[in-house]
């Protein structure tokens, strides 16, 4: 269980995170979504004790990260692929981490096998591809068999096979009852990986919902083309639908499905030249939401910290 309460982080006059509150529950993959610079990484870094909040708190299992006894046994985190020293081998990198948290040495071999790096365990990390380093990061996160897993942009720079591997790994970890929080700036990635999403923009929570709910909420409107559009608009409004007129004179109808629009037009003997049910992509929805979030604060743009 992760709890973030009224978290604020300011750099001079700009707020990277601005009164952010949310909870992340076990047994599901929660996506932490927002454009570059929205404050995702800052929030995760505060959660993991690498940065200090200006105010508010971020707790894991009720404790601040630096209060957790042998934290690798409770929380596994992947912050960036470069987090291992390139001069060390994968094995010594993990052996050092394991030793610091009193984790048995044979876990190192186990997790290296789990992530498919057993054959390169004694190669220097500097020779690894980005995908291999991501796998090593996940191996480090799994070392202490933690109940909470936090990943910052885990699919950045990965090829399709790597992305699929991370996705199935995370889903499997959540299915085991663990708390999984991952950040991303890609809605399309979250749509297939996450159960819940926390959408933030400009350091504030914009939306907290399930992916399914988000999809259904923004799914339906109907594009209608008719030579007698104003008349049809009147009829549809009478049925309780919301109608807007596009620049081309077409109607966009929300609150009534395509069958209802077709039947209403037939009943009123209004000819139709086109009738299209449209669903906004999650990506569109997400961009619209985060653009709005960007509008309610006029602070200057910070350099992107994803």
């Amino acid at each position, binding site marked *: 269980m992760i709890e973030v309460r009224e978290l604020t982080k300011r750099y001079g006059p700009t707020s990277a995170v601005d009164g952010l509150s949310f909870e992340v529950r076990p047994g599901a993959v929660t996506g932490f979504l927002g454009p570059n610079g929205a404050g995702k990484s800052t929030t995760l*870094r505060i959660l*993991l*004790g*690498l*940065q*200090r909040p200006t105010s508010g708190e971020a707790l894991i299992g009720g404790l601040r*990260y*630096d209060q*957790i*006894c*042998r*934290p*690798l046994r409770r*929380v596994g*985190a992947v*912050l*960036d692929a*470069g*987090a*291992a*020293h*390139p*001069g*060390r*081998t994968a094995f*010594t*990198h993990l*052996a*050092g*981490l394991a*030793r*610091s*948290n*009193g984790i048995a040495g044979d876990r190192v071999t186990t997790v290296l096998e789990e992530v498919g790096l057993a054959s390169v365990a004694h190669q220097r990390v500097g020779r690894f591809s980005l995908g291999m380093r991501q796998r090593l990061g996940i191996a*480090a996160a799994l070392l202490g068999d933690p109940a909470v897993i936090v990943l910052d942009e885990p699919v950045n720079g990965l090829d399709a096979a790597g992305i699929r591997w991370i996705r199935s790994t995370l889903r499997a970890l959540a299915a085991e009852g663990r708390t999984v929080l991952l950040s991303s700036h890609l809605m399309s990635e979250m749509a297939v990986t996450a159960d819940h999403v926390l959408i933030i923009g400009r350091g504030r929570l914009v939306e907290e919902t399930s992916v399914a709910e988000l999809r259904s909420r923004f799914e339906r409107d109907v594009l209608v083309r008719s030579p007698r559009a104003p008349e049809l608009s009147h009829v549809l409004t009478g049925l309780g639908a919301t109608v807007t007129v596009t620049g081309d004179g077409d109607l966009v109808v929300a609150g009534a499905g395509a069958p209802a629009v077709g039947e209403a037009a037939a009943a009123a003997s209004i000819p139709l030249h086109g009738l299209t049910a449209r669903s906004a992509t999650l990506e569109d929805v997400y961009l619209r939401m985060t653009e709005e979030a960007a509008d309610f604060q006029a602070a200057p743009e910070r350099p992107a910290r994803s």
Partner: protein
Amino acid sequence: MSTLQDTVAAEWIKIRSLRSTSAFLAGGVVAMLLGGLILFLLVQSYDAASAADRLNYETADPTVVTMPFVAFFVGAIGAMSVTSEFTTGSIGAALLAVPRRRVLLGAKAAVAALVGGAAGAGFSLMAFADARLMLGNRPAPLNPWPRWTDAVPTVLAAAVVVLVTCVVGLGLGAVMRSTAATLTTLGGLVLVAPIFAHFLPTTWQLRFGSILLPNLAPQLAGGDHPWLLSQGGAVAAAAAYVVLALGAGAVSFGRRDIS
């Protein structure tokens, strides 16, 4: 909480698996060999000199010729144990494992002291054994140690100075975070400052020179030297270096965010 003992053990694994550690130890070996060569040439020239000239020879003391370079190389190991983590980004992984920064820095300091002490003792013992073998039974002032046992305080003092330098390197690294800046500063402190001191008027040369790290060795050992500190004063100065470096390192490391 992660115990300090576990963290020290982990830091030991880390420092051993850094390639720079063996590179800097090799640097120490080279410094020792070069120092030995210089002493060899000094002894040869001494043998060729007249009896009157021989009285003007300086002491063939490895603390002057060899040990400052050894201290620099071993100090660099201490520095790299923290700066290499900042420059490679692996500091994030280190702090995820040990989030209490003072525990992490304390463990690094313990390992730096261990490495510094052991390497310092090893190198200074070898440097002095080498010097003693070359000097044979030649008299003072070239040979200040008529018997082997006379060199023991100097050997120990030289080892302590290397230990302190290694811990100072770590503290500087924790403050500066950059390898280049830390090694330059360490080099300035250990190798350049004593040269700079020579350009000062004598009183100031003595005052300033007495508190410089390499010059603490003869003052810690006691015996004949031109500097101002008593043995106790030298111990206090060495302790002050450790406290200042680690204190500044702890404050800086503890307060600043890791990006």
